[in-house]
């Protein structure tokens, strides 16, 4: 009964699968904001800003909050 999936995976052990799964979830649930992730967010924010006037205003209100985060993402250091 065990044949099917053991054959499908070949030489890979559950340990390999476990590591892969763990890396996937680690990335998925990460709360950090590295540059790559920040850049991925940009198109969404631009889309939001162009949706209407009040959305743009709200986003601009957020800008001062965002600057230190951008800085941190670029330099990779946490600002004190």
């Amino acid at each position, binding site marked *: *009964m*065990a*044949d*099917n*999936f*053991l*054959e*499908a*995976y070949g030489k*890979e*052990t*559950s*340990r390999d*699968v*476990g*590591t*892969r*799964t*763990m890396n*996937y*979830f*680690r990335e*998925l*649930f990460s709360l950090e904001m590295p540059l790559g992730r920040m850049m*991925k*967010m940009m*198109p*969404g*924010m631009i*889309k*939001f800003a162009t*949706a*209407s006037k*009040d*959305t743009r205003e709200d986003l601009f209100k957020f800008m001062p909050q965002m600057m230190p985060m951008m800085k941190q993402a670029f330099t990779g250091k946490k600002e004190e």
Partner: protein
Amino acid sequence: MLEQVKDWDDDFYEKFKPIAMGFVNEAEKCLQCGKCTGQCPAAAVTPSYNPRKIIRDLVNGNLKRVLSSVELWQCFFCSGCFSVCPMDINFPFFVFMFRLAAMNEGYGWEDVKQLEGYAEKDYLRKGITVSTFERNPEVVETIGDISKIRMEAGLPPERKVSDRGLAEINMISDLSGMTSFMKKIGGVELLDCKTCNDEQAKRCKTKPLPSKVGKIKTKLRFYNYGEPGGKAHAEA
């Protein structure tokens, strides 16, 4: 081929618990008492589905078996197992998390593909997951015009989410990675009867699964926890 215990990732569960943000916990307390399976609606219709065995495999770290199984996709999400569990193991959350893991391994995309419309056409475009359009192909008869009934009931003819609301959920979708996730699902190629030509029909007979998901190769799933049963299977 026999299963090798040395293959198992025995400390997977311990390492995974802190990452899973509290959704996956308490399984180490499992008594293997079978109370969950005793009341499970899915187990009552197909004998191979068994929450107890899946929990056992997750704690043991036999991930290959869990992730490549069809059984992982047969859960009804009814929370009945959680409601009777003497150790408060919230098994539906396990299923939810490990379905994601299985998708990462390339399993189950064809199931998810069938639900794509709910997210793409309804949730993101209209803000409402279930629209007036019937997405369940099995429903034989529907009530034609719901807007008339809505008006009779004193409601506006159509429930509309404001543009602002739509812009906001679309931004959430973009920022949280849902959009890129949806793109992956969009890459799944399902052989569709509407556009099916002879060559595809032939392929469909021998290889009924989508061939690839973007860059991920979609894999076949197996009944890893026993032979399937149920009424439908008996007929086939």
